[in-house]
């Protein structure tokens, strides 16, 4: 297990170092998320709908779009000089490669979300107050789920033409359950509702995470092997 984690961390570390060197995907995702928030801010009619009613959906649409851009780079970096073959040649369990990529993607999407959340507060003038720990918690829970699925789809589409288009087409339907759950929980947190009203959605998010992380680890070797 220690060896498995060591390999996964080596792969995640390499991905983070590559991204810090180029900064292309991360900066693009952050700028794109900021633009989505700006567009929503100016497109809404504040007299028709209160900001607090619209805010949860806007927040999660922003996170989802930013995540798709960040996830596109996951296996794209392995295309140059057939670097993925270099990893597949090594005595590395395929599932360790998946976990390494998942960890790196969680770090990237986490950074995008960490930048987008204060911008969201700024544009929508929403007071997070006591809801902040809960929102951070539900963000982590939902992000793990759709990044787990996004990581495996990123590996599936990387050898196809138009991979950048294929990823959102495949991923967005799978993002619906965690996004619906996260929007519901965020809305209740912002409205100051009791935890008992969110338990069902939190269970759904937890089950989604456990189910899809396990499934992806099991399926990934077949995805990367020709």
């Amino acid at each position, binding site marked *: 297990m220690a060896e498995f984690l060591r*390999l996964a961390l080596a792969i995640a570390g390499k991905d983070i170092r590559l991204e810090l060197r180029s900064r292309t995907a991360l900066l693009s995702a952050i700028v794109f998320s900021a633009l989505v928030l700006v567009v929503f801010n100016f497109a809404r009619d504040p007299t028709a709908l209160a900001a607090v009613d619209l805010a949860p959906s806007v927040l999660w649409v922003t996170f989802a779009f930013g995540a798709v851009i960040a996830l596109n780079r996951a296996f794209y970096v392995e295309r140059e000089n057939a670097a993925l073959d270099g990893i597949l040649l090594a005595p590395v369990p*395929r599932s360790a490669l998946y976990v390494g990529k998942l960890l790196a993607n969680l770090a990237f999407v986490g950074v995008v979300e960490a930048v987008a959340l204060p911008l969201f507060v700024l544009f929508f003038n929403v007071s997070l107050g006591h809801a902040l720990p809960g929102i951070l918690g539900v963000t982590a829970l939902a992000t793990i789920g759709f990044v787990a699925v996004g990581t495996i789809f990123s590996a599936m589409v990387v050898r196809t033409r138009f991979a950048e288009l294929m990823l959102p087409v495949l991923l967005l339907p799978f993002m619906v359950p965690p996004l619906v759950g996260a929007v519901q929980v965020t809305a209740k947190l912002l409205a100051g509702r009791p935890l008992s009203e969110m338990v069902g959605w939190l269970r759904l998010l937890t089950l989604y995470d456990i189910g899809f992380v396990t499934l992806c680890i099991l399926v990934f070797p077949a995805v990367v092997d020709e």
Partner: protein
Amino acid sequence: MRAFGALQVLRGVDLDVGPGELLAVAGPNGAGKTTLLRLLAGLMRPSSGEVRIRGQRLTRDDPAPRRAIGLLSHHTFLYDDLTAAENLQFTARLYGLPDAAAATRDALEEVGLSARANTPVRHLSRGLLQRAAIARALLHQPDILLLDEPFTGLDAPSADRFRSLLASQLARGRALVLVSHHLAEAWELATHVAVLTGGRWALEGRRPADLTAFHARYAELVHG
């Protein structure tokens, strides 16, 4: 055998390479040489048949036999935004080498790339890139070295140095399979030669003494 749909790229190809042996494989474009190396490296599964490393079957589920294989491919397997040293250190971690920094230093020294260790790979010339790729393939001291057109991009002194490196690998008991259009480059090192045409062995056996006679035989087999 390896097929892509109805197209059989390799058929009835059987080979056995022992310690200290170098099998040089020649063949025209599309003969299946690269496919053969990818099968031997475990990057591709045979449609039928099997690859065994020291008697142990090469499978997707068991990563251990892959430790014994080094592959120098058309592709360098290097990340352009990382330096040569960073690329090798990452590879060393994948292979679980106890001292990644020392292994990297030794491998770069062996190919004469120490002075450019901290240069991002994207700034290396074709020849230096090939040297970095050689260092990557040799880093974990594999027992079996698979070489696909290994002299590509190397200037004459670098090619001589690489030949010496291959000779030292053979002396250490490593098994080598080398695929090339120009067998002359490794003729003196080869212990066995084979010609692959249309996915089949057209010729296979111990290396003859005379390269010129082999070229005539090769032309006859390939061009008719």
